[in-house]
């Protein structure tokens, strides 16, 4: 393609496309990436075929460094083990790899998030008397807890971006210290197991990062949106003062990879 490196214009790509592309750009070449189900799988496969060919992907069901011929639809999919270096089980993924410290980047989704990057995928309301049940934690908090960096991929909605989430499923920069439950810096709870934390949150409207105090701020806004619009879609007072401009849109080459190579069947990208 002659124009592979040219940027697509607003209207030429969907929100999910930019979500996947922006997420893929967070992967450094050579990273050991532990990815969750859904868009993270799409993004890591794009990264491997584009900007991070030497990155490695671990899925919690037990496949290490698979090279799927066909896009897996979940982390336990038979397709995850195609041409893998190891096909074992959860003990291999969670303990021999994650807990031992091999994982550079956690690539995860979330239902709700707060200003410290704490994510909720468990319940809405009081856990003892919930009004809604999500799927539950899965490996999200484990992977996020012990990877050196985490990128969350989410849908931007006012009800999903809260000052405090109803239930901390996955730890951000300020977490709960038990038995008191007071919010303390992640380091305080993890001791020498502290390796880092949430580095970016990517939504359909923008890219968010965290300041020195572990508080979220808008880093770039996606083309077609304004920082104010993003702020209006958070139920806390989002810091947009550090927004450095627009998110770099997908290139035609990236879109071609996404639709022709990574997800030709239209599984995550209808």
């Amino acid at each position, binding site marked *: 393609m002659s124009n592979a490196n040219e940027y697509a214009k607003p209207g030429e790509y969907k929100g999910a496309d930019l979500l996947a592309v922006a997420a893929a750009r967070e992967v450094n070449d050579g990273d050991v990436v532990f990815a969750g189900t859904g868009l993270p799988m799409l993004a890591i496969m794009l990264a491997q075929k584009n900007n991070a060919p030497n990155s490695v992907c671990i899925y919690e069901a037990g496949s290490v460094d698979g090279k799927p011929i066909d896009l897996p639809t979940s982390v336990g999919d*038979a397709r995850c083990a195609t041409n893998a270096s190891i096909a074992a089980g*959860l*003990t291999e993924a969670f303990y021999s790899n994650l*807990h031992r410290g091999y994982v550079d980047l956690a690539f995860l989704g979330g239902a709700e998030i707060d200003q410290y990057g704490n994510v909720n995928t468990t319940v809405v309301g009081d856990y003892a008397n919930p009004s809604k*049940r999500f799927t*539950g934690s899965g490996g999200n908090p484990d992977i996020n807890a012990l990877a050196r960096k985490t990128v969350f991929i989410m849908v931007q909605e006012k009800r999903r971006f809260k000052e405090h989430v109803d239930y901390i499923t996955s730890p951000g920069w300020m977490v709960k210290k038990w038995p008191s439950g007071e919010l303390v810096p992640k380091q305080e709870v993890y001791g*020498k197991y502290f390796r880092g934390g949430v580095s970016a949150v990517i939504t359909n409207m923008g890219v968010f990062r965290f300041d020195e105090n572990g508080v979220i701020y808008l880093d770039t806004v996606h083309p077609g949106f304004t920082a104010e619009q993003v702020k209006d879609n958070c139920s806390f007072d989002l810091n947009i003062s550090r927004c450095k401009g627009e998110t770099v849109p997908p290139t035609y080459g990236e879109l071609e990879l996404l639709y022709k190579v990574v997800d030709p069947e239209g599984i995550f990208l209808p």
Partner: protein
Amino acid sequence: MAKAQRATIQEVASLIKDGDMLTFSGFTIWRRPMALVYELVRQQKKNLHLFEVNGGTHTEVLAGGGCIGIWESCWVGHELYGKLGERVADAQINKSFIVEDYSHAQAVARLLAGAYGLPFFPTACSLGTDILNPEYDMLKKAGKRDGSNPKIPKQKYVMYEDPFFDMGGIALMPAANPDWALVYAQTVSDKGIVRVNAQTYTDAEAIRAADKVIVLAEEIVPDEYLRREPTRNLATDYMVDYIVECPWGAHPTGSQFFYDVDADFIRSFYTATKSQDGYNKWADEWIFGVKDHDEYLAKLGITRLDKLRANTMLGYSTRVKRGSR
């Protein structure tokens, strides 16, 4: 010594008593012992205590069937084919059974301890979260941590300060040793040696952790054939109590190198079971409406099943339409 007995689905299901603690092979929508799970609903088991590293379609089948008393796990849903576990969600909201949440790696820690015969297993995973909130220990709230049930630990977890390297506080997770492991495996020998293809998930741990083990297998093969490559076997015969030859026994979940996940079937199950009435109608058709697994397969029909059949080189189906293109 080998002790595994051949049995039918109905026979092994009848051995499981109301209130027994169960765990399962597989991962979300892969390698679940579905034929046996349906039969548990057919036999109307009650108050089952499920400990599972992760849930899936089978969990929803049991939840909707009113079989569950306690569900200890970290996740339930149908992956891409149904974003929530509606029957479990209803139960938690309406308090019709007890839901005890752990994280995925914490649940693995509990099963590993059980498999190794250890009282607990340490993990630094998921510290600082509400999963460890003492107020959210639902079994304790229900007064079930008094030691009267040997399958329920006296505490949900214990924090312990590392005395060796000053790493800090780490969580000790209590062992899980279910009464039964209900396992689906691609291959079992006529003496009970178990082999699975591709990812092993937590199947080896589930078999060792459980007091009794039932294995549904796609095929039963002569023992000597599995002994030719002992490094590929998951469990030995004396770890297995009952074996059932049950082709398509994992449907609608997938079985690497035999058949793929039946996405349409799970999608329609999810849609149908968003309400309990919907579940009841679905169960009338697919569980109570068929006498046994053979009738279930006949109802599905060969055309549908053949579409799911795995490509022998790839290990999954190349005939199913998975997406919009």
